[in-house]
């Protein structure tokens, strides 16, 4: 750690990890309700549990991105963060907003109130006051980071990262538009959801990945930065019009079936490019960075994102297939592996890389961390496969044979039980990760003898 203000990242990562725990415990509870549907039914309906699960996910991932920015921008720009005070104020706003949202959901407060009540559109349920708080926090962040970058060294990594974070804020503005016409509602809802995960978030992921590879492998910056621009170009060229894969069946024009199919099929390419990028850099770099856990997470992120977003995305993206699989457990399988592979893993990678510096814990004790890597990855892979089987059966019985939804669900109980099992293992992995990150321990393995990296 070269700059004092990088310490800001610790606070962001800490809140992010707390919400990670909330997220997976919420997911586990949701999975439990699938198996024992009467559990808590009168107290906390499934819908509330699901909101906590998905909202905690999105918020902690974004907090992780903010933390990553506060960690890597000083090193890239070669100067301290413009204002640490603003950074902490931003975190306080976000934390208060998150707590407010969770309390509103769980206790069903202010129902129907335009400002204080929840706004029940998937993933964007936050009450209006929380949404406005998020926007204020994002503006504080963008101001703070932009000021830092403008006065410092400008690199491709900060460039792309900033562009991605600006995009996150700009597209979030569409969450404020809630038209009465459901078709329009859905059209612009995807401006947030799709253009985030298959657009601007990819910019954030690519730049964090590039930063990690630069630090971990010692490859020439020039090479890394060229890759970054190629990857993000591929991401946006395919991903923007790829939004069309959500415009097949919601009352939008027919031409989207072709535009959506063709462009979203090409969305696989940038994810594949990230795999090639990561492995080439590690192989070429030749430097044996002692923080092997960080290398593992960086490579794992590229690979699992390729499978979750690329392979599982392609699986149901062509309109002829999506006609049958749309809104089944296939979607759930894809959503889980894609979010985990791309955005959970890249966050855990930068946390794994930076925490030993931030907490002054070099050389690294990351054996437990690596164990948690394998636990989480196997559990998520298993969960994805189980849900995929459930989805294929559901698609056949319900969409092809026309059997009634609830009757089909009854036949999937074995898969839901296995999903719960995978979830329980995942939770163990997640808690182990958090423990390994925050509870300092003595080194368990001897560090490789090569020189430590930057």
């Amino acid at each position, binding site marked *: 750690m070269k700059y004092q203000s990088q310490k800001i990242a610790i606070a962001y990562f800490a809140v992010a990890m707390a919400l990670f725990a909330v997220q997976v415990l919420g997911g586990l509870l949701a999975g439990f309700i699938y198996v024992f549907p009467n559990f808590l039914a009168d107290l906390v309906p*499934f819908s509330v549990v699901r909101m906590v699960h998905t909202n905690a996910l999105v918020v902690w991932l974004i907090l992780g991105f903010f933390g990553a920015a506060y960690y890597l921008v000083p090193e890239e720009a070669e100067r301290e963060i413009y204002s640490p005070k603003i950074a902490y104020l931003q975190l306080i706003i976000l934390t208060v907003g998150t707590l407010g949202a969770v309390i509103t959901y769980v206790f069903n407060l202010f*129902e129907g109130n335009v400002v204080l009540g929840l706004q029940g559109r998937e993933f964007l349920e936050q009450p209006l006051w929380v949404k406005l708080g998020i926007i204020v926090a994002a503006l504080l962040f963008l101001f703070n980071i932009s000021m830092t970058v403008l006065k410092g060294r400008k690199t491709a990594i900060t460039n792309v990262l900033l562009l991605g974070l600006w995009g996150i804020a700009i597209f979030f503005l569409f969450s404020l538009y809630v038209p009465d*016409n459901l078709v329009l509602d859905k059209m612009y809802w995807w401006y947030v959801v799709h253009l985030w995960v298959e657009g601007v978030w990819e910019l954030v992921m690519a730049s964090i990945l590039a930063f990690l590879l630069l630090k971990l492998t010692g490859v020439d910056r020039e090479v890394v930065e060229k890759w970054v621009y190629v990857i993000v170009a591929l991401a946006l060229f395919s991903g923007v019009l790829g939004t069309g894969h959500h415009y097949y069946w*919601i009352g939008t024009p027919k031409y989207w*079936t072709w535009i959506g199919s063709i462009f979203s099929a090409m969305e696989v390419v940038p994810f594949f490019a990230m795999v090639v990028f990561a492995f080439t850099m590690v192989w070429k770099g030749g430097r044996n960075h002692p923080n092997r856990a960080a290398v593992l997470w960086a490579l794992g992120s590229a690979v699992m994102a390729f499978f979750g977003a690329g392979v599982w995305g392609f699986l149901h993206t062509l309109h002829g297939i999506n006609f049958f699989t749309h809104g089944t*457990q296939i979607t759930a399988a894809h959503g889980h592996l894609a979010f985990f592979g791309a955005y959970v893993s890249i966050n855990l990678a930068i946390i794994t890389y930076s925490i030993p510096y931030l907490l002054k814990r070099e050389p690294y004790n990351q054996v437990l961390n690596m164990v948690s890597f394998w636990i989480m990855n196997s559990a998520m892979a298993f969960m994805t496969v189980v849900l995929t089987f459930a989805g294929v059966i559901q698609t056949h019985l319900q*969409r092809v044979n026309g059997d009634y939804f*609830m009757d089909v669900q009854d036949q999937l109980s074995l898969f839901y039980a296995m999903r719960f099992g995978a979830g329980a293992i995942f939770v163990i992995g997640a808690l182990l990760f958090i423990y390994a990150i925050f509870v300092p321990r003595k080194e368990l393995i001897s560090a490789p003898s090569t020189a430590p990296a930057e």
Partner: protein
Amino acid sequence: MHTKSAARNIFYGGSLFFLLIFFGLTAHSHYYAKNVSTDETTLTESVAHGKKIWEDKSCVNCHTILGEGAYFAPELGNVWIRFGGNDDEEGAREALKDWMKNQPSGIEGRRQMPQFNLTEAELDNLVDFLKWVSTIDTNGWPPNEAG
């Protein structure tokens, strides 16, 4: 250095190009959604209010609507048709309202829908909303009545 700035310029220029196309198509789709795939003259106060109730109760976190939402409970974009609304308007309305009034079923081992304690007028709003949604031109989706 040269290839890097070329890559950067292609990224900026190309992204702008695709964004502009996307915004153009959005404008057309917006027009299409208001005039072709839906009939906004039928989008009454009651339908709009029904949609608001749908959101206030967070129905989408159990159900899908036009295939989007949670996968815990049945698709509702075509529930009006599934309940026979196209043949027997009054019957479907009463059946849907009764359904909502009778939740939760309390049946052991069955997924439970909460009791929302809606007034008669609110129930009508919701039914109007669901009926309106069933008239959207969705390109032939869902494949069958099961949704």
